C-alpha cells in the first residue's frame, strides 16, 4: 500500500504552493507535488496521483475518480469529484480538500 499522492496544478503559483505547503503540513503522510498547468497531463501519467487539484480540469483529470477543479475562471465556485461523484461547491474551504484526501486515503487502505 503506497502513500497517498496529491498533485496540485493551479495556474496561480501562490495558490498551488500555499495549498501544497498546507497539505504537506496537515497531512504529512501524503506525497504532495505541484505542477504548472501546462505540465498537468504528463505529470498525471508519471505521478499517478490519487487526487488532483487544478483550476482547469482536462480530459485526463476528468477520467480520474477524485479531483477538485478549484475556482475555474477565477470564480468563487469549485467542482469536487469524490471517487466519481461530482458536486459543485460554492465557497470551498481547505477542510473540503482535506476531507477528499482523507476519504480517498481511507478507501485506498480498505
Amino acid at each position, binding site marked *: 500500500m503506497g502513500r497517498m499522492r496529491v498533485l496540485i496544478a493551479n495556474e496561480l503559483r501562490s495558490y498551488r504552493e500555499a*495549498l501544497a505547503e498546507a497539505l504537506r503540513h496537515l497531512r504529512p503522510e501524503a506525497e504532495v507535488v505541484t505542477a504548472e498547468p501546462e505540465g498537468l497531463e504528463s505529470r498525471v501519467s508519471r505521478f499517478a496521483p490519487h487526487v488532483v487539484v487544478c483550476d482547469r480540469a482536462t480530459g485526463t483529470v476528468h477520467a480520474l475518480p477524485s479531483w477538485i477543479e478549484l475556482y475555474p475562471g477565477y470564480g468563487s465556485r469549485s467542482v469536487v469529484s469524490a471517487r466519481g461523484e461530482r458536486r459543485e461547491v460554492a*465557497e*470551498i474551504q481547505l477542510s473540503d480538500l482535506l476531507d477528499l484526501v482523507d476519504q480517498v486515503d481511507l478507501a485506498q487502505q480498505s
Partner: protein
Amino acid sequence: MIVETRVAEDTTNVLLVEDHASFRQALAVVFDREQEFTVAAQAGSISEARELLEGIDVAVIDLGLPDGDGAELIEALASVNPKAIAMVLSASLEPAHFARAVEAGASGMLHKSASIEEIVDAARRLRAGEALLSPNEVIEMLRMVSRKRQQERDAQISIEKLTRREREVLQALAGGLDSKEIARQLHITVETERTHMVNILTKLGVHSRLQALVFAARHGVVEIR
C-alpha cells in the same frame, strides 16, 4: 467568514483578507509556520475585515473582494491603525488597480503568480521597514491615478454636453439598431439621425459609432440589454 482573532504580543500579527477561502486558509498555515508571524485574523470581505483591523501589524489584502475594492480597506486600515502595513496580493494585471491601492496607502504589492516564499519574504521586509516599491514607482503610480481621474472628469464633462435626444440615439444604437432603424424608432429622418450622430461623435471626442457606443456603455450613458 471571520476566523477568531488572536493577537500575539511578541510576533507580527497578520490579517489575511481574501475571498478564496481555501487559498486564504492555506496561506494562513504557511504564515503560522513562520516563527515571527501569527495569523491573528482572516476575512473574506471588506465588511468582515473592518472589524478586525486593531492590533494588526501586516494586512495581506486582495483587491477584488466581493463587496468592493480592497483599496477601500487599505484606507480604513490606515485610519484605524496607522502603524499597520498593507500589502496587496492580487490576481489583477491592471496597473491602475495597483496604483489606486498605492494611493490608498499600500506599502507593497505582489501578483498572485508570486511564490509563497516571495510573499512571506515581502511581509518580512515590509515589517522590517524596507520598501518594496522605489520612490519612482510610487510617483508613477500616483501620476497614473491622477491621469485616470482627469480622464474620468473629462468623460463626465463630455457626457453632460449630450442632449436628451442624443442620449436617445445612443440608447437606440446600444439596442443594436442601424441608422434607418434609429430614425424610424425616434420618428426622425435618417439625415437628422446622422446629424445627431455627428454631434455625438464630436462631443465625445470619438471617431465611429462603435467607439461612441463603447464610451457610452463604459460611462453608464446607455444600458446594453
